[in-house]
């Protein structure tokens, strides 16, 4: 006997047609849950409102800000046009100061370099300051798995990153990694580590974290940092932080490893005066972060601090493939997070809905580009194309235009799906042909009554065909007018 699958159609089930929904599944599912999470919404709203207000205040007080933005864009443009030369210059400068330089094609190469280094050094404790590049390649997990025999203890020392690590969570924002957690949740996580109940107040939690992390700082064998900027002419690594953990990571352990995306390069030291002024203002609404660190190679004779051994890993991981393409501007990003804070989509969903290390508009652009193929194909659609990201970007990256180009790339490569292709071919044929357009309008008006009737009921998505169902889930259907404008015009206005 033929067994038939029962048609299970729950009320909550999404019944939108395959063709329209397929490019955005993934994000849509996660976003659906996120927009119903009240605690998450409150946390994201608090953080983004505060960040946007702070950013506007300090940037409005800087009359040269628009000029700096232009300069930043042009510096990055020039850097990317000559990236191979500047990378060579950077490597020479670091080696000239007695440091080691390694070009890593992939995340795998970075893991292997650091794992082998840890083995050679007999390292046990690795401290890290905040680094999105290492999040991107899941450095911690892969070191723990691939080098399990070394029994490494890898400790995130940025407070937010540490709490995320303890909670088995991932950052949901480039600058505020655990903005999705409220104070009670943080107290829960830290209480679990403390073995006693800690009160949910900033003072108590902060002082516990400081005590615990201090032990790690002092015993670390290797310190790992990212880089906000790398200066080609001097070989200097610039990091900006607010907690001072960065300095303890770079100066206490005998070995300092920097993992830097190759796009973080600027040609000249003086270029930092442009970028440092923009970064903190755009990211956290500060004129400067509390600490701005410059590290140039290992400790030189006569210097009082710095690691004895210095390693710079220049990580490609898909970046160089964007050079010279219509997506090159995505490499100009300085990871300030401003585009996330102003993004009306991010503000509703938070970062985890993106399902990737980088969230918000910049995440929606670079994730599919860095991963390649059909990966993260949902993300370019996670935007209303409002352009707030482009307006907020301190480097002037036209993020919403890049999202449009990514959507077009999906169409060209056949990722967008046949149903959509047919729908827009139909759209083209209708809109090229005024007679056909007129008839379509008439057909719509004929269907108006039954549709409007269905639309009047609550929770009616099932009864309406195509994208109308998605519309009427939460909104009343607009009624078509009895006569279109073109008829009113003919009759005389």
């Amino acid at each position, binding site marked *: 006997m033929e067994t038939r699958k029962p048609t299970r159609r729950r009320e909550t089930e999404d019944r*939108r047609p395959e063709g*329209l*929904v397929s*490019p*955005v599944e993934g*994000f*849509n599912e996660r*976003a659906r849950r996120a*927009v119903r999470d009240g605690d998450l919404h409150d946390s994201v709203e608090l953080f983004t409102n505060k960040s946007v207000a702070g950013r506007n205040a300090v940037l409005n007080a800087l009359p040269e800000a628009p000029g700096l933005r232009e300069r930043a864009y042009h510096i990055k443009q020039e850097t990317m046009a000559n990236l191979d030369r500047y990378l060579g210059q950077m490597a020479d400068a670091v080696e000239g100061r007695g440091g080691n330089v390694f070009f890593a094609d992939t995340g795998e190469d970075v893991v292997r370099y650091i794992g082998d280094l840890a083995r050679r050094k007999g390292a046990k404790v690795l401290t890290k300051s905040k680094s999105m590049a290492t999040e991107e390649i899941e450095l911690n997990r892969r070191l723990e798995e691939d080098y399990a025999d070394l029994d490494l203890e890898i400790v995130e020392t940025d407070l937010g990153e540490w709490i995320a690590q303890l909670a088995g969570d991932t950052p949901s924002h480039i600058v505020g990694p655990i903005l999705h957690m409220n104070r009670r949740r943080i107290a829960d996580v830290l209480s679990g580590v403390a073995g006693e109940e800690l009160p949910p107040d900033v003072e108590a939690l902060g002082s516990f974290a400081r005590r615990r992390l201090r032990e790690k700082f002092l015993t670390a064998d290797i310190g790992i940092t990212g880089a906000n900027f790398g200066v080609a002419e001097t070989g200097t690594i610039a990091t900006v932080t607010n907690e001072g953990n960065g300095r303890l990571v770079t100066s206490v352990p005998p070995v300092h490893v920097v993992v830097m995306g190759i796009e973080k390069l600027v040609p000249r030291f003086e270029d930092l005066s442009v970028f440092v002024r923009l970064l903190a203002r755009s990211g956290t609404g500060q004129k400067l972060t509390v600490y701005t660190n410059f590290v140039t190679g290992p400790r030189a004779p006569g210097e009082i601090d710095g690691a004895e051994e210095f390693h710079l890993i220049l990580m490609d991981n898909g970046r160089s493939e964007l050079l010279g393409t219509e997506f090159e501007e995505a490499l100009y990003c300085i990871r300030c997070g401003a585009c996330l804070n102003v993004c*009306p*989509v991010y*503000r*509703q969903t938070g970062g985890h809905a993106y399902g990737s290390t980088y969230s918000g508009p910049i995440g929606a652009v670079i994730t599919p580009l860095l991963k390649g193929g059909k990966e993260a194909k949902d993300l*370019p*659609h*996670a*935007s*209303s*194309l*409002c*352009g*707030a990201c*482009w307006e907020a970007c301190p480097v002037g990256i036209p993020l919403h*235009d890049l999202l*449009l180009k990514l*959507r*077009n790339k*999906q*169409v060209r490569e056949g990722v*967008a799906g046949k149903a*959509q292709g047919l729908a*827009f071919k139909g*759209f*083209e044929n*209708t*809109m*090229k*042909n*005024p007679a056909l*357009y007129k008839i379509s*309008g008439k057909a*719509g*008006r004929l269907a108006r009554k039954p549709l409007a009737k269905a639309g009047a009921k609550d929770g009616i998505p099932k009864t309406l065909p195509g994208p109308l169902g*998605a*519309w009427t*889930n*939460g*909104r*009343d*259907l*607009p009624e*078509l*007018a009895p*006569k*279109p*404008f*073109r008829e*009113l*015009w003919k009759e005389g*206005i």
Partner: protein
Amino acid sequence: MKVALFVPCYVDLVNPEVGVSVVRVLRRLGVEVVYPEGQTCCGQPAFNSGFFDEARAVGRHFMDVFEGEEEWDYVVSPSGSCTTMVAHYYPFIYENLPDERDRAEALAPRVREFSDFLVNVLGVKDLGARHEGRAVFHTGCHQRRELGVLEEPLELLRNVEGLDLTGWKNEELCCGFGGTFSVKMPDVSVAMADEKIKALDESGADTLVSCDSSCLMHLKGRLRRTGRETRVLHLAEVLDENGG
């Protein structure tokens, strides 16, 4: 002064009264209005979904219909978004097609959003209109960022007698329509509308005005679904009320 009226497809089919108001306001100001009958759509739905070839084809039709350099001085449209598609994004989609690009670039400065045309071309700020009530104005994102037409509609509204124009929280935030975004990401789209509606409630306004009927269609759909009776009007309709 002679203008060709571009009535976007959804205004044609859903809100034809907006087009009627535009015609009446323009005529009152002594502008001769023509309506090229071959017009359909600017192509934006295809463009926003990444179907650039289809958008280009529709764009060619649009340019064929609206170029008419001998026949009219400007093309006026009651939509910041569709105006942006033609004036800003046609040069973008035809970037590598020199013939069309030249045509698009020549047409771009002649295609004007309604409030921009009134204030910056005609130099008119007061239509002698009258509307009782407290209103907030929603600037569509294309109008705000690509066209930079921010003050013009506000100036026009401030001169409407009886109208109390008030600000609202985070007014620069997108309403959540976003064309096909509204049906591809319906949950986020509706959540974005809810944030606007919360701000609207807090403002105490009874009227919502915009230069974009598409944003209004989305917001109105959500307002009605949540049981709100807020009046939802295009700027042209407000300026047409009890006017001279």
